[in-house]
């Protein structure tokens, strides 16, 4: 599936958002989080990030792609983060790429960065003990068929352990 349908109504980045993203990108280039690669595009507002499954985990040797879209008032608002193409098989990741992770929604803090989000996602993958879709995958994905953003979902977070 293509995730590019989300966020069509997005406005251009505010001055503060653009400034901060530029700084994040510069910092990323100097010091990227381990296991991630930012795919260079000409867009500051949408980042495509390669994720490499960590060694000695269920996802070792696998490669995934994250699409990160930034709202006009980032970082006062969380970015929208979804997996593209084939998302990892994981109890908190739906087959449409949506990720059930509290920091992306209710627990967002503007002190977090793309880098810290990436580290959270990789740690979520690495601590997984089973490769499976969430139990409500079919139903959830059906509900999102109209291209709804995961940020519009009313999430109930599965548990804090994984």
């Amino acid at each position, binding site marked *: 599936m293509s995730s590019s349908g989300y966020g069509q109504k997005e406005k251009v980045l505010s001055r503060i958002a653009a400034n*901060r993203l530029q700084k994040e990108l510069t910092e990323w280039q100097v010091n990227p989080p381990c296991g991630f690669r930012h795919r260079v595009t000409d867009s500051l507002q949408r980042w495509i990030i390669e994720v490499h499954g960590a060694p000695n985990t269920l996802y070792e040797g696998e490669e995934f792609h994250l699409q990160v879209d930034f709202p006009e008032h980032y970082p006062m*608002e969380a970015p929208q983060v979804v997996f593209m193409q084939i998302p990892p098989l994981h109890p908190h990741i739906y087959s449409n790429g949506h990720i059930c992770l509290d920091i992306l929604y209710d627990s967002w*803090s*503007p*002190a977090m960065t793309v880098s810290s989000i990436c580290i959270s996602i990789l740690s979520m993958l690495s601590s997984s003990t089973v490769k499976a879709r969430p139990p409500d995958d079919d139903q959830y994905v059906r509900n999102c068929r109209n291209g709804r953003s995961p940020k519009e979902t009313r999430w109930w977070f599965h548990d804090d352990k994984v």
Partner: protein
Amino acid sequence: MAREIGSPEKQAEFLKDQGNQYFKKGKLGAAIEAYTQAIDLCPKVPAFWTNRALCYKKRSEWDKAERDCLKALKLDNSLTKAHYILGLALLEREQYHDATNHLEKALDLGRGGSAGSYMVEEIWLELAKARYTEWQVEAAKRQRQQRELKDSLFDLMMQDYENKLRDLKLESSTEQAQFGYRDPNRVSHLTDEEVSAYHIERHPVKESQVTAEERRKAELFQLTGDFQDRLRTMEEVFDKAGAPDRPGEVPDYLCCQISMDIFRDPVITPSGVTYERSILLEHLCKVGKFDPITRATLHPEQVAPNLAVKDAVQTFLSQNGWAYKM
């Protein structure tokens, strides 16, 4: 009997309110008219002057804006808006020094201001632009001066080196003359007898000849070594002198962790974390009542200015003008 008209103060207030209404609707001419009448009635109210100055600013009538700001500041020297507009007017006239002084003053007065009239970011952007331009001009001048100084020092050192070198050669040729030295390159043109004569002739002076030659070589070596050392030291000195004018990184402790930008109005939370005031207040209003980093509960009235960081930023900026770049 004439109807009682309100006191001049009341009338002037009324006219100012009218002016504000016009201003909001973008009717600058009418607003100026109203403020002018208010000023005629009560010339001692600074707000009438600053409001009119704001209209002139919008119309880019900088001379008039400047005059009104000066009037207002004479009545009250602590008006953020008047210092700000005056700074802008002076920038238009390319009076960078005075302009930045007034913008700096406006920034100082504006820090910690109430939400409605908070204009620190606006002032900062103008100040940063002006300071950056100022720095560019000065840095280019410093670079040119240092380059010229370096070039002329190099020439002097080179001259000195060459002089010493010549002296050494002169000295040695005198020695050579004394010892009857002949150029060995010419040996090939000599006949066999001459060659053997040369060797015989040369033989008795060989010892002292070698010693002198070695001494000369050692001196030459020393001279060249000293010269190279001095060149290196000069490079280092000029490199250090030029360092403050080379753009670098603003240290993390002078940047807000949310905006990732240098502090304008730093405030500290009970958790001990420092943030940019406007950014933190926006977070508390839009995201939640918690410290963005520690997630401890936080209310707007709990934040306090961080004066030490403010001073550290000021010191850093005064030494690193490039950091004003937006």
